[in-house]
């Protein structure tokens, strides 16, 4: 009780203090457009986006860098009038329905055809585009070539081969595969569906209400119980630490990890998409792109749109810098990605090819958090508790069907 009371009085005090000061640092309060980014892990990105904003001559732009739970913070701020004018995110059907986003079709102009169609599709709701894709991220399977040669194992091209390879590559101190500390259910749920030719949502219908889904998710259970997964690593799947430290022969992580892996392992690694389950399925890689969006509650929508157009459509040199100078992303514009020399060498070139041939939206606009929670819960129960996959997925499909009905009518 005491601590809560103290916290409250501290909060009161800081609110008073905040009221006294200006938070823009530019002096002309209310003049600057507010632009939000989540905190990129790569050094230099923050300085870069601040540099871009400063170079915009028409309107002053204040960049806010947001460490921590960006999605929740952004979602909450979009409810009030105090949110950013321009921000990065992926559009959700529910936010479009709630009228929180401004359609940006007119911002694109002729440049529209230069953006990769599959990426643009993830920013499109009911035929309107709500975000200008900034940088493409994707996930894939990294494997250690020398471990495979030593064990006499071929890179897997089906899910069964993947399970088998993970088992055969597990020795005393090395595990076969690391796919997240939750046992793979979180990141591999989508790829498992795609491996069987299914999807989260397809044509406004539940995409995984199919007996094959149970088989596909059952494979993740097989992986989990085989004892070949690394579990409880210090850094989770998004960081390549377990892989570069030689704790595993394979790890599911993202394109962003390529520079760190190259630095540690040289060319002793390769990359693969998540393999197909059977002939009806296809290999897949989850792909997503943050896009620049405009807040519908902003009082300066036109200025915000002008800025987005300038930064992400006209200044192609900034897009190239943003994508390739710090971390490792694929520029969403074909004209830039095709001439990027960094993306023509081996592992990165493979990734570009996967995105072209095997891309699946990791976070489609009509896959809402209610559906995601129901699906992830079901997968987690199947994988970790051994719950019957068909019943669990059927229940999740029921939740998703209700939600789709509510959204699409």
């Amino acid at each position, binding site marked *: 009780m005491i601590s809560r*009371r103290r916290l*409250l*009085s501290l*909060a*009161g005090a800081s609110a008073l203090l905040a009221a006294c000061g200006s938070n823009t640092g530019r002096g002309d309060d209310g003049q600057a457009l507010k632009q939000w980014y989540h905190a990129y892990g790569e050094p230099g990105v923050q300085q870069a986006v601040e540099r871009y904003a400063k170079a915009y001559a028409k309107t002053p732009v204040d960049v806010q860098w947001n460490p921590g739970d960006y*999605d*929740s913070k*952004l*979602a*909450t701020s979009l*409810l*009030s009038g105090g949110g950013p004018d321009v921000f990065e995110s992926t559009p*959700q*059907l*529910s*936010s479009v*329905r*709630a009228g*929180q986003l401004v359609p940006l079709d007119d911002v694109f102009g002729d440049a529209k055809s230069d953006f990769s169609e599959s990426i643009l599709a993830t920013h499109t709701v009911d035929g309107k585009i709500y975000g200008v894709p900034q940088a493409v991220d994707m996930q894939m399977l990294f494997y250690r070539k020398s471990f495979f040669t030593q064990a006499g194992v071929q890179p897997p091209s089906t899910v069964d081969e993947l399970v088998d390879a993970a088992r055969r590559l597990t020795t005393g*101190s090395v595990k076969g595969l690391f796919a*997240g*500390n*939750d*046992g793979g259910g*979180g*990141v591999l749920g989508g790829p498992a569906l795609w491996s069987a030719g299914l999807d989260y949502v397809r044509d406004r219908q539940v995409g995984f209400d199919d007996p094959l889904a149970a088989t596909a998710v059952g494979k993740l259970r097989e992986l989990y119980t085989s004892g070949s997964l*690394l*579990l*409880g*690593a*210090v850094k*989770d799947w*998004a960081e390549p630490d377990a892989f570069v430290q030689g*704790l595993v022969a394979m790890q599911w992580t993202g394109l962003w990890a390529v520079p760190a892996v190259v630095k540690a392992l040289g060319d002793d690694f390769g990359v693969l998409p998540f393999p197909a389950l059977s002939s009806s399925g296809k290999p897949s890689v989850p792909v997503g792109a943050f896009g620049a969006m405009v807040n519908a509650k902003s009082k300066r929508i036109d200025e915000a749109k002008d800025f987005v157009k300038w930064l992400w459509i006209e200044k192609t040199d900034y897009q190239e810098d943003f994508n390739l100078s710090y971390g490792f992303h694929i520029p969403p514009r074909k004209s830039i990605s095709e001439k990027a020399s960094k993306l023509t060498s081996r592992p990165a070139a493979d990734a570009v090819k996967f995105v072209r041939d095997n891309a699946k939206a990791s976070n489609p606009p009509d896959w*809402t*958090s*209610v559906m*995601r*929670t129901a699906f*992830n*819960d079901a997968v*987690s*129960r199947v994988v*970790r*508790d*051994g719950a019957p996959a068909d019943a669990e997925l059927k229940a999740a499909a029921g939740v998703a069907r209700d939600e789709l009905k509510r959204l699409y009518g």
Partner: protein
Amino acid sequence: MRNGRAFWLFVGPFAAGLLVFVYVPIGWSLLLSFFDARNTVTPTEFVGLRNYADMLTDGPFLSSLGTFSVFAAFIVPLTFVLALALALLVSQISFMQAFFRSVFFLPTACSYVVASLVWKLSIFNGLRSGLANTVLGWFGADPVAWTVSTSPPWYWLVLVTLRLWLQLGFYMILFIAGLQRIPAVLYEAAALDGARSWQAFRFVTLPQLRTTSVAVLLLLLIGAYQAFDEFYNVLGTDRGYPPFARPPLIYLYYTALGSGGQDFGHGSAGAVILTLLIVGVTLLQGRAVRR
């Protein structure tokens, strides 16, 4: 007159803060619980009790309430007994009492988030090099994925030890304060009547600690239902929270504030249900203890 001004000077800012940051949000959330408030905090579509009906038939929410009733049923007595035992031990030793009191109290000053990360990343990580697994290794056992495995559910060991470590000291201090208020003459009288130490504890200490015990039980119970920090930090990942050991508050947090699915109507209805449950259990318990 001067007294009145001083009163408002001291109480005013706090009362204003309480009003703005506590009572208005509580009232607002009560209001939201009767509306279809998706992606908005100024809803227009009144739905009556539908959100409540939805939450009361919502599988994950009910199972989280169930899980946490079980969690409370064992964390509350466990903390109570251990804190009382510690308090008795510390108040009986005659040397370095202040030192031991401080040592046991110190973890209370540690942040839940920091402690969660220490527990998750260094003590109970799943690698061979984790502290717990290193100790297991001395006995030739295989490493255990403490926070991942659901059969057996080792994560409870992680969460319960963490919570005990963090809060035992605080309740120990409450008990020590209670113990110090028991007049020594009672023990002398009991000793004259031939009471042994167990009898003195049973017939003098325990009854005299009744008020303290009631307070401690209440705080523990409320704390158990309000669990959030260590669960979120130990079991949560960037892909969300697993369906087991999910405290009601975490479920409500994802319902109301999860990205893309901001549903303040259902979230608020759940929060009201949880509040009523805590109030109900607290009243029942108060009645049972007071007799």
